[in-house]
């Protein structure tokens, strides 16, 4: 968020549009603010990082977060008021779905010591194919006033 704010400030100073900025915007990905978030500059496991397509990978040490959604794009709609006050509407929208059998992904669910249930992700995906379950999109939004 700090990197995006710095990017917004710079664009605003240069009289460029700031109405909608995404982490996947090419000019943000090429900016120094984005470069500081790249892997190599930060630990992917302890701090998270920005990926090649602008997705944000969360810190892997946060078990709850990474198992909820560990890779997403961040969007921000901003207006600038008086006294250099910015009003930002942040949002994350993701699709909750599972990969098909072709990807061969397995989810390990620990049940007891030395007992892990191995569930193929394709099974959950298959439920959507036969109409028992559905993929869905989910959104997180929050507002922020900042200078």
């Amino acid at each position, binding site marked *: 968020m700090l990197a995006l704010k710095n990017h917004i400030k710079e664009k605003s100073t240069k009289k460029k549009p700031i109405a909608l900025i995404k982490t996947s915007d090419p000019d943000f990905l090429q900016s120094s603010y984005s470069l500081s978030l790249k892997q190599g500059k930060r630990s992917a496991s302890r701090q998270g990082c920005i990926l090649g397509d602008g997705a944000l990978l969360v810190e892997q040490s946060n078990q709850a977060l990474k198992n909820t959604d560990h890779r997403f794009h961040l969007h921000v709609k901003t207006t600038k008021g008086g006294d250099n006050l910015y009003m930002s509407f942040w949002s994350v929208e993701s699709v909750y779905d599972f990969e098909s059998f072709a990807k061969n992904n397995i989810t390990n669910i620990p*049940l007891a010591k030395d007992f892990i249930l191995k569930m193929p992700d394709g099974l959950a995906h298959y439920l959507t194919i*036969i109409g028992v379950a559905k993929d869905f999109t989910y959104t997180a939004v929050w507002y922020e006033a900042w200078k």
Partner: protein
Amino acid sequence: MNIKLLVLFFSLMLSVIACSSENECFVADAVTQVKKINIKGGEYFIYLRIAGFNKKESFYELYGSEPKFDLCGKSDTLAISDTHIDSTEGIVEQLVVDDLKLTVVYTKNGTQDTDYKNIPIKIK
């Protein structure tokens, strides 16, 4: 596949998971040893970690001693270095170990035919 059986299976699994007191992470990372390497007389261990629930992400990790992993895939020692495999950068061609730091080399050509566990490793 019998739909009723499938739904029953999922329901049973969810019940078992919900009742399990051992499970503090809900989903465990899958960690497998890729290779034991020797650098300047010292033994080092490279692991592949696959993490996540509905979307999976993969990482290489370098350890200075052979780690033990708990039920959730957490190691008993800190990795010296780790690197995320970013599939948006291309196909993984090589894993480089340089000054005890891991770097993935990508190529834009071809498809990912080689399993991440069998990627060539170059020690500089």
